[in-house]
């Protein structure tokens, strides 16, 4: 039996996303994934294109990320490259690099786990400040991130100072069109 861990439709619904508007591409290797990613980014109809790559595959180099960035620049689609499984930061043509980790959530009644809480660390930004981090929680009903509601620890999330956070483009369900998560 093959072990699989995959995106789960009801889980997407629970985050306020519409799974029927998501096209999932399961591609055989990193080369195919990057090629399909460039093709997808040339197409202006997407809300966002998410590419998920585990580890540190050889085809993902500066050239590959430059290709993605150029294709995205022409169409205006937001590309997100999600790297998992011990990925090392590599030179890349991306605008920003974020590190997303889970954070303890503010407990609900009866010590139940609360809303999805994440720590977003801006590791790098082209021509901008970096090294900032925010702890935010995802509000499904409003469709946006809010500063996590811990008593005493408030991180102001200053809107409009930098370009919109990539994760908002990822999770916001309001933008029209289709999506691909690869």
């Amino acid at each position, binding site marked *: *039996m093959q*072990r*699989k*861990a*995959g*995106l*789960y*439709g*009801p*889980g*997407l*619904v*629970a*985050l306020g996303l*519409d*799974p*029927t508007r*998501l*096209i*999932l*591409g*399961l*591609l*055989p290797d990193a080369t*195919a994934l990057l090629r*399909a990613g460039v*093709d*997808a980014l*040339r*197409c*202006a*109809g*997407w809300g966002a294109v998410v590419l998920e790559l585990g580890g540190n595959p050889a085809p993902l180099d500066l050239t590959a990320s430059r290709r993605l960035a150029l294709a995205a620049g022409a169409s205006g689609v937001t590309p997100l490259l999600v790297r998992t499984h011990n990925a090392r930061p590599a030179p890349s043509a991306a605008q920003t690099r974020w590190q997303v*980790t*889970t*954070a*303890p*959530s503010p*407990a*609900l009644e*009866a*010590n*139940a*786990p*609360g*809303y*999805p*809480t*994440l720590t977003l660390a801006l590791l790098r930004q082209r021509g901008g400040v970096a090294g900032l981090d925010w702890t935010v929680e*995802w509000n*499904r*009903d409003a469709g946006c991130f809010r500063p996590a509601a811990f008593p005493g620890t408030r991180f102001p999330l200053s809107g409009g100072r930098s370009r919109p956070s990539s994760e908002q483009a990822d999770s916001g369900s309001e933008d029209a*069109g*289709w999506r691909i998560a690869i």
Partner: protein
Amino acid sequence: MPVGASPSESAPLVFIAKERGAFRLHALDADALAMGLTPGMPLADARARVPSLRTLPYDPASEARLLEKLADLCDRFTPMIEIAPPDGLLLDITGCAHLFGGGAALAHDALRLMHAQGMRTRAVRAVTPEAALALAQLDGTLRAGAVGDEATVRHLPLIALRAGTDALLALRRAGFVTIGDLADLPPAPLAARFGAGLVDARDRLLGRIDSRITPHRRLPPIYVEQRFAEPVAHVETMLMVLGDLLTLACEQLLERHQGGRCFLVRLYRSDGEMRVLTVETGQSVREPAGVLRLIREKIEALTDPLDPGFGFDLVRLAVPTVEPLGAAQPALDGDPARDVDITALLDRLAVRFGPGRLCRFVPRDTHIPDRASRLAPHGEKAPTAPAWEVASPDEPPLRPLILFDPPERVEAVAQVPDGPPRQFRWRGALHRIVRQEGPERIAPEWWRRPEGHAGNPGLTRDYYRVEDERGRRFWLFRHGLYERETAQPHWYVHGLFA
């Protein structure tokens, strides 16, 4: 299964099948026939006569496949082909013969094609398919491609009627030997004695009733082809011609207000080989450039490359699946090509990587988490799916973003009998639980289990949403109710929350 231990390659070859408990000869090669063996003879007798006999088990399925392949090869002469098992092909060449220089020339071409495939065949033309088949199978005197007229049909034995054995016996007892004996009898007494079917069969054989074949492949609604006087040996040239054919086909589609969902390209090589390229699209299309691009993708993705050999002499394009498609009108506002772009992209990716690799989530009407969501491959017709269950406001996510299939076993410490978990070990790491909520009790779908109604409904699952001290959120469940369903319930992690 006896497999021939052959003394030599040239020994007579027979195919054997088990009938009434004994192996009998089913089909024989020419050498075996010449030695006096006949179909239906027991294998033991045949071996006694010809000890060097080579035998192979008779495989009706592969015989049918071979016949189908030959029928597809004959496709170059006419699209109307009927397979007449066990060994006949009927071609309706009405209106096609002039393309090959007349019926006789067409028959010669067909014989040459079959010969290239290693077949020994007879070709006969006749007014009705029944007459042609009977003459080809029963009359060895006709020369190749001859036209069987009524006079030749009259010489055929009664078996040409394809009546049942009882009817044949009755006819023989009545003193009839050939079709000619029956030909001039009035139909009414004949029908009264032997049935109306026999009169019909006789009249069809003699060409008195019009009769048509039933083609084994449904004719595609749109069908264009290009023949070459000289074989084309370059794939690029062939693709150019294909582009023209696509333009023609798309014009026809436009006239019919339809679009194609499937495009079938058949490339006939001059040496008789044929290659089929099939391209399917997620939405009906009639834009030649887009389809041609898909075909190029298909050719690039072929595992064995397209080999023109000595050249293609016929390119045929069929659109077997069409759907209504109105005229495209760009929207007044914004981007006209937005959705079209995405469909074209998905078609291209599906051709390149296979349709199974592009999926969409489809909800299923069940409360079992594993089955609640399904991945439907690209191009699948979306049935009326139930809607996704919408969460109530202000509720944290109750279903994980990532689901494990199958769930992964963990070692958990929990209160007996049904307390929440305190800590668990998963993939070698210990997680101490600081927040938890549950249980959400999910009963098994007993109606899906064999014997599920009779005291074996499956184990209940108690799901807990838990969070460890570093803020990682898991979906755990206890498999089975303590002491009621199982003595020692196991714990599993089924998913991860964002």
